[in-house]
């Protein structure tokens, strides 16, 4: 399997030894390169997801979806992006201007930071330290701050209700996500993201940790959908109740940031699911089937990761275009009365499995 660290090490050596840059300068240049690469990947993925969701949704609804701009409508997202970039940023009267402008950046920063943690491929990871999962949970919860600020600073009752809903929802569902992650950390015995991927070299956790992992996977899918504010949990922006929820008053690229962050959070949820349950970038390996494993290794690790993540997000998109929306009290009941207790019991169950070695 191709190891991307060869490329990264080569760049490092090229900057340091060949060009003779000082260590601090090397780090700076590398940071800039990574930053550009990251934002590029971020933007392209968002464009892909806009197109993907519209096509999937169209298929569910007996429609064709975008098919006019470019071949098969492939350039539709780019056209939309340029449209949103040149739109006016409308400033409103009687709003808290500083917080109003700050809120979309908080949301996008949280999303980019979480995005940076994902294991893209063999040796292709930006932030990799021994508490990676912990860092991921921490940064992804900054986003709710941006949403609350947006709702508050817009000086609009609808956005305020949307923000309050969103706050309640995200804080609640983060508990489940946290517990699910801890469950998987208990199984893998490490919080390092590369460590978790490495631990799934032979079998993915979804197979090796069997029952508790399946329970955790289902809970993660539900909580992850809620965490990204997508249907059937899209109450913060329930368009038939609150028009557009917390981002009603935003226009232009500020609105675009929310839109971008929503799609990328979707991808992050898919990425983390594939990291914790489906082996991250690790190919499908079956013990004893050497030939099969060898063939699987020929598929590049990036393709494995993207494929798994997109598969998970497809399921989440499927939810959205099938189910009606929950009500706020039903949403919180689901979390506090069902998902949270189940994930707590599941954590104990997983611990027992690990202690007694009841796993493959």
């Amino acid at each position, binding site marked *: 399997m191709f190891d991307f660290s060869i490329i990264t090490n080569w760049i490092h050596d090229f900057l340091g030894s060949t060009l003779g840059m000082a260590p601090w300068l090397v780090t700076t240049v590398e940071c800039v390169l990574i930053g550009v690469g990251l934002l590029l990947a971020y933007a392209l993925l968002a464009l892909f997801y806009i197109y993907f969701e519209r096509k999937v949704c169209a298929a569910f609804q007996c429609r064709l979806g975008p098919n006019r701009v470019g071949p098969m409508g492939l350039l539709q997202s780019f056209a939309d992006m340029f449209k949103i970039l040149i739109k006016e940023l409308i400033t409103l009267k009687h709003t808290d201007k500083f917080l109003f402008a700050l809120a979309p950046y908080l949301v996008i920063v949280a999303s980019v930071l979480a995005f940076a943690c994902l294991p893209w491929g063999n040796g292709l990871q930006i932030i990799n330290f021994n508490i990676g999962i912990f860092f991921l949970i921490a940064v992804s919860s900054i986003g709710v701050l941006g949403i609350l600020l947006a709702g508050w600073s817009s000086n609009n009752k609808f956005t305020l209700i949307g923000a309050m809903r969103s706050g309640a929802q995200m804080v609640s569902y983060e508990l489940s996500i946290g517990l699910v992650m801890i469950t998987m950390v208990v199984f893998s015995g490490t919080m390092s993201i590369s460590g978790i991927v490495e631990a799934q070299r032979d079998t993915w956790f979804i197979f090796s940790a069997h029952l508790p992992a399946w329970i955790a996977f289902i809970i993660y899918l539900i909580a992850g959908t809620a965490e990204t504010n997508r*249907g059937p949990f899209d109450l913060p922006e329930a368009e038939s*109740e609150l028009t557009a929820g917390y981002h009603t008053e935003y226009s232009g690229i500020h609105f675009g940031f929310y839109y971008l962050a929503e799609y990328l959070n979707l991808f992050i949820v898919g990425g983390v699911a594939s990291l914790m349950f489906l082996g991250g970038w690790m190919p499908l390996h079956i013990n004893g089937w050497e030939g099969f494993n060898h063939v699987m290794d020929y598929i590049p690790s990036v393709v494995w990761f993207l494929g798994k993540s997109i598969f998970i997000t497809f399921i989440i998109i499927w939810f959205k275009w099938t189910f009606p*929306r929950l009500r706020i*009290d039903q949403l919180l009941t689901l979390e506090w009365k069902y998902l949270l207790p189940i994930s707590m019991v599941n954590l104990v169950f997983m611990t027992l499995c690990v202690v007694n070695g009841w796993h493959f």
Partner: protein
Amino acid sequence: MAQLQEKIAKLFPQATFEEADVLTINIADAQLHDLAATLRDDKDLSFDYLMTIVGMDWQKELGCVYFLNSTTHGTTVSIKVTTADRDNPMLHSVSDLWAVAGIYEREVYDFFGIIFINNMDMRRLFLSVDWVGYPLRKDYDANPELNPVSIENERQLDTTDMWLEGPNGKIEKKTRPIFQKDDFVVNIGPQHPATHGVLRFRTAIDGETIKKIDVYMGYIHRGVEKLSEGLTYQQTLHFMDRLDYFSAHNYHHGLCMLYEKAAGIEVPKRAQYIRVIMDELSRIASHCLFIGTYCMDLGATTMLFYTLRVREQILDIMDKTCGARMTFNYDVIGGVMADLDPDFVKDVKELLAVVPKNIKEYNKIFTGNVIAKGRMNGIGVLSREDAISYAITGPSGRASGWACDVRKTDPYSIYPELNFEQVIMTEGDSMARFKCRVAEIQQSADIIAQIIDKIPEGEICAKVPKVLKLPVGHWYQVVEGCRGVFALYLESDGTTKPYRLKIAPPCLPLAGVVDHITEGQKIADLITIGGSLDYIVPDMDR
């Protein structure tokens, strides 16, 4: 009818009677409330359903005609009350007897300036608060300078007036606030996806819980009743397409029957069959659209496209025969405008073949869904008594257990010959209202299947003069629209134009009941309940 008259004459010797298609009781204002209470509460009479209040201006006098119906006996009666005081007309309110009267009396106040004593909310209903004059009075000055188009923000009052009668008979004007001082009031509408048109709810909420809703309507009020007074009878027909545009055929049917009854015109059998088929096709299309938009309100967007498929098929059928997809203007006085398209029977049969399959699919995707059940079961429960008191007719009323289908209770056209049962549910919640409509799609399909092969040959329209002239008198006609009982009242002075045409749509009471059934529910339930009532704003505004 004679028995009824005898009984009332015994109780109220001052009352006089008029024989028309509906028995009319003339009574003085002082006894109006007593008479109304007796009519409602007496076991033999039990007129528990107030169909409409018609405001009238007879030049010398102003007044009201109340149409009452008994849900147990099925009889209809009307009360006529007048007042000669044109400057400060006052009548007694019956809003304590029938909940729907509150909103009906506001409408009369808005158009005729008649103040109802003891009505707790005497504000204008459709027109803006600073409107000058009462438009449906015959001496109304329509000079645009009196009511210029305002470029200011909408004016609104936070208080409402009421005229209360003290124990000594003295009438006092009082003012009360609409909301409490520290209520958090959210403005839902007039531009809001959940209000299905330009309707506005000022909603006082406590967190996510609704405390009170104040409904504002009239944003697309076009004054159809006033406009009709200046047009010939034939010309008034096309307005019916623009009220509830999903029951265009049904409303046309109603108004044509009213004029035919007044003129004594016999409609050819073929036209009657065509009218009924069109009515039922409209009903299927309307209920399909309801299911789609309702599911979309609840967040299940995909359903909309599945239901629109069937509706599209119906619109194509209509397009071929009527030449339009929305505003058909197909029924005319004496029959229908054009004969059926040669493919009509074939197309309808194709439609009937797909309807059951589609209903099955809707139920599979949505009705059985656990989230849908959680959102609709037990939400916005309307009891049978309240449904009658608030005059909630149509599928919404039948979901509360009230058998109010005019096609059965007061059958017209060829409905008596048809074999079908009313869809009645007892739960009265949003789920029942939803299921009731789904069942009615099948019911309408069954009705069409019974007659589609039996359409008789012959004339499609009776001989009717180009300009119709009706004799002096008044007539009353009820039909079943897609959303409930659609009542029409015509008063003719013997000319070619209606002296007064009152349109009593089913959607006005539907808006009136929203406050009652949303109290204490969540904001999201307002969407569920409002959607399940399925009101059409142009219908309530007219």
